[in-house]
């Protein structure tokens, strides 16, 4: 077992990327993810990697496009306003099927918003963000250790599916320190015969491209993408389920919010209330099935987010009209505390006649 070290979330992502074999990073500074770009600036030269501070987020994502298309394991990171700027490039990356890991340490929005933690980029991350029919694989860790493990997983998923993976964190998880260990990793070495590397004797040229001028060819490409997304939906749903089996009320939350919700749930359980928690780890593909299954016995659901209500739409899709889905959110960089959430639990439980 590796020695535990105390690390900031942002820095842990950086080290995990290095462990995963990422040797190329292109980024632009923005609060609250700057520790990550600074970590990469210091760390990558130590492992003969390439760190480059781009002139903008737009350039950074296009450098990622070039590097990913050239066959490298590559990463960029930003926070909400900067991540918006990357959306054009992400659409191209999805269209050209380039593997890469994109980190969004979310803050309050819209616009410049605030620099405090937020979760209001859920729609952007899971429903597209850029133009066209595409999906990012979206992973939302809730601890510094999980940031490490999921960063490494993200690189593998990206290569396996030739798809961008968004690691959706937030200012709280990026800034906090927790003990982490870097377990032995066997980096998957996936061949990339499609990459543009120079011909080197190959007779057919490799072209990295998302343009299909003929609409029937473009539709064919879209069908191919949708088939790939269906496989990902089948294989890559990840979630954590706690005390859901007997729960009258099922809480749904992801990322840092899930931990605050967990504390509220524990308190409610001690008070004898049957409350459980489903924590989506993959936000796309979303764990519709476990939520749908829970709706067979649960009387109600409560989704908690640091947003005005985004993931709750997916929870409602999963639950359908059979059971009420309540929502509690804070916005603009405000973090809900467990007492607020506990109060919500009590109110719902009383209305449902349960203790």
């Amino acid at each position: 077992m590796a020695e535990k070290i105390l690390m900031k979330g942002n820095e842990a992502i950086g080290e995990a990327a290095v462990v995963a074999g990422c040797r190329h990073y292109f980024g632009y500074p923005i609060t609250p993810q700057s520790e990550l770009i600074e970590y990469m600036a210091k760390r990558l030269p130590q492992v003969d990697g390439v760190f480059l501070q781009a002139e903008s987020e737009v350039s950074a994502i296009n450098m990622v496009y070039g590097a990913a298309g050239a066959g490298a394991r590559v990463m960029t990171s930003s926070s909400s306003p900067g991540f918006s700027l990357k959306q054009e490039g992400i659409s191209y990356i999805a269209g050209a099927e380039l593997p890469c890991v994109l980190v969004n340490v979310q803050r309050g929005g819209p616009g410049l918003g605030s620099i405090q933690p937020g979760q209001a980029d859920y729609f952007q991350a899971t429903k597209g963000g850029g133009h066209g029919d595409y999906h990012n694989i979206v992973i939302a860790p809730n601890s510094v250790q999980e940031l490490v493990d999921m960063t490494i997983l993200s690189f593998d998923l990206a290569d396996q599916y030739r798809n961008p993976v968004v690691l959706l964190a937030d200012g709280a998880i990026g800034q906090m320190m927790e003990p982490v260990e870097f377990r032995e990793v066997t980096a998957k070495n996936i061949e990339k015969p499609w990459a543009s590397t120079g011909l080197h004797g190959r007779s057919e040229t490799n072209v990295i491209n998302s343009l299909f001028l003929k609409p029937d060819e473009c539709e064919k490409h879209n069908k191919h993408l949708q088939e790939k997304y269906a496989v990902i939906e089948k294989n890559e749903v990840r979630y954590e389920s706690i005390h859901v089996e007997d729960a009258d009320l099922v809480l749904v939350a992801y990322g840092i919010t899930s931990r605050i919700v967990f504390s509220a749930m524990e308190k409610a359980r001690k008070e004898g209330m049957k409350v459980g928690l489903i924590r989506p780890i993959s936000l796309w593909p979303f764990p519709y099935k476990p939520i749908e299954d829970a709706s067979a016995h649960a009387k109600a659901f409560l989704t908690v987010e640091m947003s005005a209500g985004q993931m709750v739409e997916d929870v409602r899709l999963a639950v359908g009209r059979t059971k009420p889905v309540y929502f509690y959110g804070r916005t603009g960089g405000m973090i809900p505390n467990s007492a607020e959430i506990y109060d919500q639990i009590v109110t719902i439980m009383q209305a449902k006649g349960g203790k």
Partner: protein
Amino acid sequence: MTEKLFAIPATLKDIPTHYCPGCHHGIIHRLVAEAIQELGVQDKAIGVAPVGCSVLCYDYFNIDMQEAAHGRAPAVATGIKRVHPEAVVFTYQGDGDLASIGCAEIVHAAARSEKITTIFVNNAIYGMTGGQMAPTSLVGQVTTTSPYGRKEDSCGKPIQMSEMLSTLHGPKFIARVAVNNPANMAKAKAAIKKAFEINVKGEGFALVEVLSTCPTNWGMSPVEAVSWLEKNMLPYFPLGIFKSEEVAK
């Protein structure tokens, strides 16, 4: 016994292009392909295509290519070059792509002296989208978005990219050439080859701006277009080498 005097270079695919009659892209493609061929680096060349008329150049070069978003070719090329430092990476961009939407990318790639070659085709108009005003359209030039002619007081004067980029410390070679006659074609070929030689040697950033016609969107015959270029573009976009080690000495 016959000797083959003229053939398509192996670096170009033997397929028809979509370019309009009289457009200079075909000539410029060939000069780029010849330079790569003559330097013997086809195997390690990686090109980046722009958005604009030459978007499909990835279909024409017999070279590994990446298609970039509008204006972002220098950033994409940077990403490629940083992964494969031994590769000969180049961008092929038009005036809207490089001088308008991609201004930041080209300036910073040049400033970093990114070890890539940029072929910048300036025809003073947006071709693919149907003849709109470009950052290099001349004052008074009529386009679909400057139907009364480009007005200096509201649109300014066209950007002279070669001159502007030459003020940076990064670039090793910047030249403006034209392919309006055989003599200029020879000079253009020499400049493009020089830019790729610098690339092969890993010396730094090199850019060749090539003035080009756009008969279709200028609303002229190919012959008229060449004389319009000579009469209107050459005075404002003078040909020559703006930056090179020789100039520095």
